[in-house]
C-alpha cells in the first residue's frame, strides 16, 4: 500500500523527520505513538503534501506511485486521506456542497462521471447517520460552529464518503469523550477492508482499545525507534516513552 523509506523533512528550516521508514500492506492498521514533538503530525502533513513541509530526502510511494512528486489534491485523488487534528471551518460552504465537489473531483480522476444527485444524497444521509450526526449537519457550513467532537465525526464522515485507500487519522481521539470515541472507532472498524490501510496517530493507548492495530510504532525524534504488536501500546501506557528515548 504505502512504502516510506528514509524520509527526511523539515518545517521552517527545522528538521523534524530524520530518516523514517514504514511499510504498510493493504488491509493493515498501523498505530503511531510517541511523545510530543516527535514528528507524529508532521508525518501526516508531509504525506498529504501540505505547503511549508519540505522533504529533504527519502521517498514515499502509494500503490507504487511516487506521491511526493504530486500536488496535495492529486495525492488525495490517488486515495490518500488525512483526518485532521484540528478541522478548520469554511463558513457558508455547506457540507453537502463541499462533499459533492470532493467526491466528483476524485471520481473525475478515476475517469468516472459525477455522482448523480440522488445517489449522492442517499449516500451522504447514510454516512452522516453512521457517525451519529443529525441530518441537518449536511446543510450546515463545513465545521461551522461544530463542537470539537462534531468536527471529528464530520472528518470521519468525509472519509466514509470518499472511500480512500490510505486513511491517516491524526490524533482523531484528542478531545473526544468516550461516546464520541466509540463512534469514531466503530466507523473505522466498519471501514476495515482488505484493500484499505490505516495509519492511526495517537497519543494515548485508549483509542487502541477500540481500534485494534496490527502494528504499533513508536516515533521519537523523527524516527521510528521501536515497533511491535498491539501489546506494545499497553507497555507504553504503563512505562511512558522516556525509556525508549534514552534507547534511541
Amino acid at each position, binding site marked *: 500500500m504505502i512504502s516510506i523509506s528514509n524520509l527526511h523533512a523539515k518545517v521552517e528550516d527545522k528538521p523534524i523527520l530524520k530518516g523514517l521508514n514504514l511499510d504498510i500492506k493493504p488491509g493493515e492498521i498501523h498505530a503511531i505513538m510517541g511523545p510530543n514533538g516527535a514528528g507524529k503530525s508532521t508525518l501526516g502533513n508531509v504525506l498529504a503534501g501540505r505547503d511549508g513541509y519540505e522533504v529533504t530526502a527519502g521517498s514515499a510511494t502509494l500503490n507504487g506511485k511516487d506521491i511526493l512528486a504530486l500536488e496535495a*489534491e492529486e495525492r*488525495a485523488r490517488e486515495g490518500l486521506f488525512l483526518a485532521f487534528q484540528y478541522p478548520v471551518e469554511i*463558513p457558508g460552504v455547506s457540507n453537502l456542497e463541499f462533499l459533492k465537489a470532493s467526491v466528483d473531483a476524485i471520481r473525475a480522476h478515476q475517469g468516472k462521471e459525477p455522482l448523480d444527485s440522488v445517489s449522492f444524497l442517499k449516500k451522504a444521509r447514510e454516512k452522516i447517520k453512521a457517525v451519529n450526526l443529525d441530518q441537518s449537519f449536511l446543510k450546515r457550513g463545513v465545521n461551522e460552529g461544530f463542537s470539537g467532537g462534531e468536527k471529528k465525526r464530520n472528518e470521519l464522515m468525509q472519509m466514509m464518503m470518499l472511500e480512500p485507500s490510505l486513511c491517516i487519522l491524526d490524533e482523531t481521539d484528542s478531545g473526544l469523550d468516550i461516546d464520541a470515541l466509540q463512534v469514531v472507532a466503530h466507523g473505522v472498524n466498519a471501514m476495515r477492508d482488505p484493500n484499505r490501510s490505516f495509519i492511526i496517530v495517537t497519543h494515548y493507548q485508549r483509542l487502541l482499545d477500540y481500534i485494534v492495530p496490527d502494528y504499533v510504532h513508536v516515533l521519537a525524534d523523527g524516527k521510528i525507534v521501536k515497533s511491535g504488536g498491539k501489546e506494545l501500546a499497553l507497555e507504553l501506557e504503563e512505562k511512558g516513552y522516556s525509556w525508549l528515548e534514552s534507547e534511541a
Partner: protein
Amino acid sequence: MTDAPTPVLTDPEANQEIHQRFKKEYAAGFISDIESDTLLPGLNEDVVRFISAKKGEPEWMTEWRLKAYRSWLEMVEPDWAHVQYDKPDFQALSYYSAPKSMADGPKSLDEVDPELLRTYEKLGIPLHEQLMLAGVAVDAVFDSVSVATTFRDKLAEAGVIFMPISEAVHKHPELVKKYLGTVVPQRDNFYAALNSAVFSDGSFVYIPKGVRCPMELSTYFRINEAKTGQFERTLIIADEGSHVSYLEGCTAPMRDENQLHAAVVELIALDDAEIKYSTVQNWYPGDEEGKGGIYNFVTKRAVAHTNAKVSWTQVETGSAVTWKYPSCILKGDNAVGEFYSVALTNNYQQADTGTKMIHLGKNTRSTIISKGISAGKSQNAYRGLVRMNPNAAGARNYTQCDSLLIGDQCGAHTFPYIESKHPSAVIEHEATTSTVSDDQLFLCRQRGIDTEKAVSMIVNGFCKEVFKELPMEFAVEAGKLLELSLEGSVG
C-alpha cells in the same frame, strides 16, 4: 425648438469639409456620416440642446437638461472616495452617438474577441445569446425579439408601463415630469448633474396601484436597451400597493469602449409598494496590469413612502473604478430599506461602494449586508451612512459589513457613518475581516479539490447571504462570475 445648430449632413465630402471648419471654430461640433451621428468631443449648452433635439424632446425636457448643465458647470468632481484615477477630461468626451445599426457589428463570432467568447462559454451562455451579447448581426437574435413581444403583451394587460425613458417622455410626459429628478435632483452631485444634462436613454417603469408585476422586469428583454451609452437614466415608479422586481445588467462581461459611465437610477415606492432592484455589474475591469477598464460613477437612490419597501441587491465584479451607493430615503412611517451587496475587486480594480439609509419616518427599518472581496492588488472600500432623523422614533438599522482578503497585496476598508438624532433609534453595526486561509485551502485540496475551485467555493460561501436575495438564475450566474473574476488570484 431651440436655435441650436443641428446639422445632419449626409454628403460625406461636405461633411468632411464642414467637419474641419467646425473643429476650428467651435470647441464642439457635429459630424454625421451615413450610418451614425456622432458628436465631436466637448460639452456646452449647444451640445445639450443638440441631444435633446435629436430625441425630439419637448421644451420642458430641454430646459430641465440645461438647468442641470448649468449646475454642473459650478460643481467640482468629488475626490473623497478611496479611489485613485486620472480624472476624465470632460471636454474630450463625446456626448452623443446614435445607436449603431446592427450592420456595424461583427458579422460572425469569428470576428469577436476570443477572450470574450471563452468567458461566455464558461458562463454557459447559449449560442444565440452569445451572438446577441457580442453584437453580432444575425437573425438568431430574433428568438429573443419574439420573447420580448410576448412579454410586452402580458405587461400591457396588467397595465404596467415598461419602455425606454426617451419614449416615456413623449407617451407619459405627466409621469416623467412629476417624478424625474425628485429622488436624485439635477444638482445632487457632479455626476448626477452631468447625467441629467446629457443622459442618453434608460428604462422607465410604472406599476399601477395594487398591481403585482406579473414577471421580473429585465433590461435583457428590452432589445432597444442594447446601446444606451454611457449616461443611462432609469426611473421606476411603483404606485400604491404595487410590487415589482427589476433586474439590471446582463451577466456576461461587456467590453464597452466607453471609459466613463455615469448612470442615475431613481426609484419611487409609494405607500405600501415594494421595489426589488437587482444588479449584476461586470463591465470591463481593465487588464492584469490595470490598463483600461471602465470608470463607473453611479447615483442610485430610492424613496420609500409609508409602509413601502425597497430592496437593493448588487453584485459588482467589473469596472476599473466603482463609485456607487444605492440608497434609501425611508420617508414614510414603517418604511423598510435593504441593501445587499457583494463587491469583488481583483488585479488593480478599485471600488468605493456602500449605501445610505436615511430614516425620516417613524418605525422605519433598514438592513445592510455588505460583502467585500479583495484579491490581487485591488482596493475595496465599504462606505455607508445610517442617519436617524429627529422624527424617526423607533427606527432601527442593522449593518453587517464583512471583508474577505485573498493574498497579501490587496486592501479592504470600511467607512461607516452613523448619525442618530432620535434617542429611541437603534443602530447595530458589525464588521469582520477574514482571509481565505491556508488551512482552508489545504482542507479542500486534501479532499481532492483544486485551489481555484476551492477559492471560488470559499468566496461563494462568504457571499451566500447576499446571493440568496438574488433571483435564482441570477444567483447561479453571479456565482460563476465570481469564479471567473477570481481566476489566477491565487498562485
